[in-house]
């Protein structure tokens, strides 16, 4: 069979040619905006308007753009980047820990309320973050939490999808015999979880963390409704604010919007390239739509 398929690939039938062409054109489509933003981040503000968008200009301005980006308006971009790291890092860490604990408990114990929680989690997976942003805002304004770090951080720590993934993984990979053995050795239930089960579940822990990290990093609606002080903005909201001023200010900071966009996707793309295995396993078991 392998010999036959090798033979097939050496002859390019019309069907195979068509397939390769579709894939090639699709690749161009998916990479086009990324190529544009990479090329454009190297251009000065004037060159952005006067040179062709998909090729470099003679003047390599990436470093001066970056310098201006980090010094503009008292270095507010640095602030936004640190805020994003705080929201995405701490939020995802909290969400992952709580989801793993809950998913493990739902998989390995039968207790009062466990069926109800499992059902609620599955229902909640279907609720998109955009649908929840306004109700969260109404509640936060009632308890005077709007425009605080907590108003974005706390909702980011709830991951029903994470609970679902952790539960399914624990059911399949944490053997009951091992838990029994640990109990006979005299370990307490919590010690078993933190010393043994958590280690076995480490692949799903990484997957949950990655998905939640990207979901928080990409979230727009929640910080938009919650935050009014731009010192607490994440990158996405900050870039959008700059973008809003472009129309009135005559594009004087257009290169900052472009370079800022470029820098804000570099870490995520790097995370994708280095941690592909975890993305695939998360997606294969259900996936999320932000």
């Amino acid at each position, binding site marked *: *069979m392998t010999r036959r*398929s090798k033979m*097939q*690939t050496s002859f390019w039938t019309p*069907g195979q040619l068509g*397939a*390769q062409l*579709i*894939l090639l054109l699709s690749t161009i489509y*998916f*990479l086009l905006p990324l190529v*544009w*933003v990479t090329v454009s981040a190297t251009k000065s503000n004037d060159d952005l308007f006067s040179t062709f*968008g998909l090729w470099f200009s003679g003047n390599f301005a990436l470093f001066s753009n970056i310098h201006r980006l980090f010094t503009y308006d008292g270095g507010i971009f640095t602030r936004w980047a640190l805020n994003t790291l705080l929201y995405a890092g701490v939020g995802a860490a909290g969400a992952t820990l709580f*989801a793993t604990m*809950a998913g493990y*408990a*739902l998989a*390995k*114990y*039968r*207790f009062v*309320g466990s069926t109800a929680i499992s059902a609620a989690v*599955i229902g909640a997976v*279907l*609720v*998109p973050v*955009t*649908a*929840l942003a*306004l*109700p969260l805002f*109404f*509640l936060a304004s009632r308890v005077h939490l709007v425009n605080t770090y907590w108003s974005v951080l706390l909702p980011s720590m*709830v991951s*029903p999808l994470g609970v679902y993934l952790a539960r*399914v*993984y624990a*059911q*399949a990979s944490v*053997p009951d015999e091992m838990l029994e053995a640990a109990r006979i050795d005299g370990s307490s*239930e*919590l010690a078993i979880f933190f010393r043994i089960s958590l280690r076995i579940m480490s*692949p*799903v822990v990484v997957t949950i963390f990655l998905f939640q990290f*990207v979901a928080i990093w*990409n979230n727009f609606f929640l910080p*938009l*409704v919650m935050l009014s002080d731009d010192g607490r903005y994440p990158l996405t909201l900050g*870039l*959008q604010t700059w973008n809003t001023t472009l*129309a009135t200010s005559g594009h004087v900071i257009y290169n900052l919007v472009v370079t800022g966009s470029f820098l804000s996707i570099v870490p*995520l793309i790097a*995370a*994708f390239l280095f941690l592909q295995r975890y*993305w695939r396993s*998360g997606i*294969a078991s*259900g996936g999320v*739509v932000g």
Partner: protein
Amino acid sequence: MTVSDQAKVQRLPIAPGSGGDRHVVSRPSRMRGSAAPYILVAPFALLFVFLFLVPIVYAVAQSFGGVKRVGLLGQAQTTFVGLANYQGVLHDPAFWHGFLRVLEYGAVTIPIEIGFALVLALLVDSAVVRFRHAYRLAFFLPYAVPVVVATLMWSSLYEPDFSPLTITLHWLGLPAPDFLGPGTVLWSMANIALWIWIGYNMIIFYSALRAVPPEIYEAARIDGSSELSIAWRIKIPLIRPAITIAFLFAMIGTLQFFNEPAILSVVSSAIGTDYTPNYYAYNTAFSGRQYGYASAMSIVLALITTVLSFIVMRWSAHRARQAEAR
């Protein structure tokens, strides 16, 4: 090989609720009287109640209230107005106009999103293609891009004056469309959403296809079936659960359509404050400060979403039973 390596998540069910409970590998322990499970579940459960359930209940409560301005300074005071907000929403032409726009948008984009993703997944999965790994990566990269940044990038490519797309079209002697005009901006936004989600769905379908043992279609191949008919008759039916869940998520996302209109409204005057139901609810809450009315809109939208999701799930369960019976 460690235990964790053997338990690859790929073997797990595709759809939430599609068998997590039924395929319990081992019997849950009966630790009667132990506080451990409650301690483990407590942090998630508390946050879930206060940041998921309570906001929804609070929005429902708020939807029965209206704002009355009292006194010389016009201070806002909330009063109980019963179902008045719901009556208002049900008779609000702007809300339903936006809803129809979202339906039209979904009717066009969801089939493209699912169909395109399926074609790419089948092509990359088929034996004839090289550079599988590179293709998968290229298609999946847009998912790593925040929607704000994706919209900023595409809006620069839509810009009438210096967009490389416009320049290239002119250079080829072709007329360039006004990407941000009233008739086109909806489809320009559709393109952004498709750009983000096609690759994501493609990876879901591809993972599902890889989980199918090749022996299943090897026989058909030996019988002389074409790759196309194997894809249509064997592969697609086998990954139907993955397709259904992708469809469901795409539909829910479409009904809640918010990000692209909110971001593109800066560069396109064709996007009004009531462009989509969710964007309308946002503007009603923020510019209008009418929390009760905005809550009622969110809830009507959530109810419609729930009913449609339920129909989709029932229909797919029905189809699955039919397929089993055959």
